[in-house]
C-alpha cells in the first residue's frame, strides 16, 4: 500500500490529504498513474496543468515509477 500526497483542490476532489494505492495495482509510469487516478476521480481530468512530483521532482509523463517512490499531486492554486 502506498499513500500519494494530495495538495490544493485535489484534496477536495479525493476527500482527504492522501490517496492509497495497493502494490498490485500500482502503475508503471506517471502517465498510467494519472489515467488511473482520473478514472477513479473524474474531476481530476478537468484540472489543466495538474502536476505530479516524484521524489520531490516534478515528473514527465514517461517517468517510470514504483511503490517505493514518494508521489504527490500538485495542482495550480490561484488565491492571494
Amino acid at each position, binding site marked *: 500500500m502506498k499513500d500519494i*500526497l494530495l*495538495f*490544493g*483542490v485535489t*484534496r*477536495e476532489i479525493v476527500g482527504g*490529504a492522501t490517496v492509497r494505492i495497493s502494490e498490485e495495482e500500482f502503475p508503471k509510469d506517471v502517465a498510467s498513474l494519472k489515467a488511473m487516478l482520473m478514472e477513479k476521480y473524474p*474531476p481530476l481530468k*478537468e*484540472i*489543466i*496543468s495538474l*502536476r505530479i*512530483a516524484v521524489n*520531490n*521532482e*516534478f515528473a514527465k509523463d514517461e517517468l517510470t515509477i514504483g511503490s517505493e517512490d514518494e508521489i*504527490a499531486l*500538485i*495542482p*495550480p*492554486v*490561484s*488565491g*492571494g
Partner: protein
Amino acid sequence: MSDRYIRQRTLNTFGDAAQDKLQQASVLVIGAGGLGVPALQYLNAMGVGRLGIVDADTVDLSNLHRQPIYTENDLGKFKAEVIGNFLKAQNSETEKVIYKTFLQPTNALELISEYDLVLDASDNFGTRYLVNDSCVILNKPFIYGGLFGFEGQVSVFNYRGGPTYRCLYPEMPDRVIADCNTHGVLGVVPGIIGNLQAMEVVKILTGIGEVLSGKLLLVDTLSMQTHKMNIAAIRENLELKSLTKEQYMVPCSSMKGLDPEALEAAAGEFFLLDVRSKDEFSAYHIPGSRNIPLDELGDRKGEIPVDRPVCLICQQAIRTKPAAAVLEDHGVALYELTGGLRNYLEFIKGVRIPDTQ
C-alpha cells in the same frame, strides 16, 4: 534616525552592507490584498528603498479578516492608497509609489520595467501569467505566492536562468480551479505566505541564504509540514519576447457601489462613464463624465482608459448592470453610482428629478 535598523545591522551575515542593498532596491508588489498586505508591511519596515503598490480595488468588509492593515474606517477606500499612507507613516525614509490600477497587458511592461523585481501577490491566474510573461520579457525575477484553503505555495521564478511559472504550470487553468475570491481562506494563511515571499525578496536583494529558485515550497499549515519540489527550467519558456496574443483573464472584481458622497469626494480618481442615451446626457450630466450609450458600448470599449477605475452612471443604477457585463473583460475595476443620477441629484441639490427610464 541612525538606529532604526540597528538590529539588522548587528545581525551576523547581514550588517550594513545588506541594509544598504535594501535601501538601494526597488520592489513592485502586484496586489495589496491577503499576500500583499503582510509583504508590504515588512518590506517597508525592513527598509526597501522604493516600493510600488499596484491595486485598483477598494476595501471591502470581507477583506478585513485576512488583510489586517485595513480598518473599518477604510471601507470603500482604495487599498493602494490606504496602505500607501500607512507605510509612509511607518517609514518616512523610503519611497512609496501608488498605482490605482490593475496590472494589464497594456501597462505591465512599463510598470515592471521601473523596478528591480516583482512580488506577485495577485489573486487570479490571468494576472499570474501576465506577471510571469512580462518578467520573462524584461528579465526580472518575481516571487510567486499562491493559496488554497489552509495551504500555500511559494517560489522564485525567472531568477538567473531558473524556471518560470510556465515551467511549473504550462497552461492557464480554467474555471475548475476556483479563481478570484470564491474560495475560503483562513485569515492568517496569507499572512504566513506573504511573509515567506518578503523573505525571498530580502534574499535576492542582499544575497543572503538560498533563494527558492527552481523549487516550489508547499506549506500545509494544518500539519505544519513543508515540502520542496524541484522544478526544471524549460528553455522555450525563457525565450518569450513579447506578450502573447493569449487573453490574460481580467482581475477579480465585481462591480461595487459608490454613493453620491463618495463620488463627490473622489470624482477625479475615476473615469466617469455615463451609459444613458445621447439625449439624456445632453439634458443633464455630471461635469467631467463621458457618454457612451449602453447599446454602443460593445463597439466603443476602446475609448475607455484602463489606467484607473471606471464609475458607471445611469439614471437609476439599472443600465449599469448590463454595461458592467459588457466591460467584464476590459481589465478595469468597475463601480456604479449607487441609486443613479436620481439619487445623486437629490444628494447635491435636494432636487427630485422625474424618471425618464
